[in-house]
């Protein structure tokens, strides 16, 4: 489903990602952990091309883009359409209601019929537990509710992969659970997901694989059980100890 080969990203002289190689199968849930500044966000953003990689290739489904050479402007939106992104700060459109937020992609980007898009958006919002909040503006919703709208908005485009960048770290502790619950349901339904998070319980329960990143490289990757109980590298061990 996702294949990343020799991916590199520099910001000026700063090498943020150094030779990342990654393969994620359909329906897999991969959790990325690592210290601040290790490049987790940058890796996610390279997967949906909010950052253009400096070198290497990104493949999603059967579309492969190689950034070692020039990449056609047409293909970048193609790749982007296959991914959905859930942001740490939600980034809902403040001038639109919850349901308008969710309908926006299908209507504007895919040109879907409004009536049809409305029905689908309603279903999605019902699924994330917001059936009674369709016509609320973002400022009228709690953080947890906003983030669930964010998930529904990403789902509305029928992406092949959902990317989550610390989806719960801006939330009050009592609101974290409702968002994680929605994410768990998606995982159970077979959604392919890449999740950057500090929620170790979520990783333990839901992830097929946990990746530990540090200083722009993947230090180790393993099943959650193995990685948490039996880390192979000192850096991983140190990081896990720090969390305890």
């Amino acid at each position: 489903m996702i294949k990343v080969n020799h991916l590199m990203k520099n910001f000026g002289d700063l090498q943020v990602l150094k030779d990342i190689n990654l393969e994620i199968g359909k329906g897999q849930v991969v959790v990325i952990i690592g210290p601040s500044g290790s490049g987790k966000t940058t890796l996610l953003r390279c997967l949906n091309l909010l950052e253009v990689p400096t070198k290497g290739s990104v493949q999603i489904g059967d579309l492969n883009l190689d950034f070692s050479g020039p990449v056609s402007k047409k293909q970048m939106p193609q790749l982007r359409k296959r991914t959905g992104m859930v942001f740490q700060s939600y980034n809902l459109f403040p001038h639109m209601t919850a349901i308008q937020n969710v309908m926006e992609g299908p209507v504007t980007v895919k040109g879907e019929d409004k009536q049809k898009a409305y029905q689908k958006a309603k279903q999605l919002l019902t699924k994330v537990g917001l059936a009674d909040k369709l016509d609320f503006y973002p400022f009228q919703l709690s953080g947890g509710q906003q983030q669930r709208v964010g998930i529904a908005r990403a789902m509305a485009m029928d992406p092949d992969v959902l990317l989550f960048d610390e989806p719960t770290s801006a939330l009050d502790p009592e609101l974290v659970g409702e968002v994680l619950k929605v994410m768990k349901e998606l995982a159970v339904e077979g959604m392919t997901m890449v999740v950057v998070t500090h929620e170790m319980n979520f990783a333990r329960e839901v992830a097929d694989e946990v990746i530990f990143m540090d200083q722009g490289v993947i230090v180790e990757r393993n099943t959650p059980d193995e990685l948490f109980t039996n880390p192979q590298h000192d850096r991983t061990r140190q990081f896990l100890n720090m969390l305890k």
Partner: protein
Amino acid sequence: MFLSDRQFEIVQSSFLPLLKGALVFSLSLTAITFVIGLVLAVITALARLSNVPLLSGIARAYVSIIRGTPLLVQLFIIFFGLPSIGITLDPYPSAIIGFSLNVGAYASEIVRAAILSIPKGQWEAGYSIGMSYPQALRRIILPQAARVSVPPLANSFISLVKDTSLAAVILVPEMFRKAQQIAATTYEPLLVYVEAALIYWAICLVLSFIQDWLENRLDRYVAR
């Protein structure tokens, strides 16, 4: 009252011509040039924000020239200057061109600042659901930028109403030119100019009410 009968009569008889000058010329000039100016402003702001050096260069030069020269001089160049290279325009079209160019330059700075004030995450959220640059601009950024720019643009609009009095110098028969003519024939400049001033003031008062109403309306999706 402290007006003599004759003065009272002058006020009475000049009121309608002045009001007509205001409605037919001052306000129409304001409305038309504001709309054209806004379109120019959005185009200019986008050109300045683009990463095509030629486009942003042209936009920058345009804004710099208009902001760096007096409106009065610009109007003179268009109306009295251009005929010497064979372009002769009537007063009203000259004023439309001059004021539109002026509004375009000043408002482009407002629009540009408003666009820049929208958080980067909004663009990214648009891109993340597959939008192109024009789609994100039209659906996500400009509606929010519009809200931000309403207060400063409303101020520009109200200034513009008053600035249209400058069109008198290129012979547009708007309110102030009417006032000059009446003052000259009646020898009551103080009276007539104060009367014109009061009419400007009344118009601006009405406009500020409209401004308040608009701002309240646009605030509805923001927590207060």
